[in-house]
């Protein structure tokens, strides 16, 4: 009896069936539109950016983007668009706009009433206030004596 005469092992007999591709057991494909098993991830739901997008994000080389189908033309187009974007990136606010905005701001939004404003005291104002207080004291004292 030669090995060739032996009966072929069946998938259920447990004898090294995994070594023979014809007996590999694959999980059954889920029915169309049927529920997916817990560990399965539907491929279509995963966002895989194109090489062009990866290149524009700095995650791939230009050569890689050009190697994609129709990539050469797309890279040329995006180089032109990037040049235009560069023009926008170099723009600054015209200086007159700052003044225009300041002039247009309402003047009384955060203005405090006079009694809540702080008083700035200079030495001259301090001396004047002290003199006024002394004078008022003298007048009151004289009136009181009478």
């Amino acid at each position, binding site marked *: 009896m030669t090995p060739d005469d032996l009966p072929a092992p069946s998938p259920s007999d447990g004898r090294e069936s995994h070594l023979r591709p014809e007996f590999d057991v694959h999980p059954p494909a889920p029915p169309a539109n049927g529920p997916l098993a817990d560990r399965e991830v539907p491929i279509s739901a995963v*966002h895989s*950016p*194109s090489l*062009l*997008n990866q290149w*524009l*994000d700095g995650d791939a080389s230009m050569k890689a983007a050009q190697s994609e189908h*129709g990539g050469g*033309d*797309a890279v*040329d*187009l*995006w180089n*032109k*668009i*990037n*040049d*235009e*974007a560069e*023009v*926008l*990136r170099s*723009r*600054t*606010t*015209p200086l007159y*706009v*700052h003044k*225009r*905005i*300041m002039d*247009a*701001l*309402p*003047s009384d*939004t*955060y*203005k*405090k009433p006079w009694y809540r*404003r702080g008083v700035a005291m200079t030495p001259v104002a301090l001396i004047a206030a002290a003199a006024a207080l002394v004078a008022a004291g003298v007048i009151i004292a004289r009136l009181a004596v009478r």
Partner: protein
Amino acid sequence: MALGPRVTAIVQLDQTELDQEIIRRVLDGSRDAFEILIVRYSDPLYRHALGMTGSPDVAEDILQASFIKAYQHLNEVRGRFDAWVFRIVANACKDWLKNIRRTHVSYEEDDQPSSYATPDEELDRNELRTDLGHALSALPPSLREAFVMKHGEGTSYEEKADLLSTTVGALKMRVHRARESLQELLEEKYA
């Protein structure tokens, strides 16, 4: 040399504190202090408005209206002033796009200086600028916003996601969709 994320965070913290100090001064009645905030933040906001509307005149008007609104509601700022005022400008741009329903963008009226080598090249670039404006105006505002933020302002996804209060993944997805739409609109003529 690029700054690490920790250093960037510290710089951002200092910036936020400085802004808060200026805001306190404005709320205390120093109207002139508000100009510091205008000078500090107007350029990126102007670029955003220009990219969204395509018109320098409209961008200036939006910037002015937004800063006046910001000034009047300054006591409502919580956290970063730049993120807060950016949202005001971004919303104003979207409102303008909704209301105006324009079919084209007037990049032609722009008087930016030419930097092209030959008249032919300048002609080609002017044509591309016009077509790009038309294509941008065909995009939904959210995609247009994402595209302008990424390509027109040149800052990172992380920073922009922070400003928009969204995730980097969601913002990337919007930018990718915007690019794909623009390419579809432009490739027949240019690719």
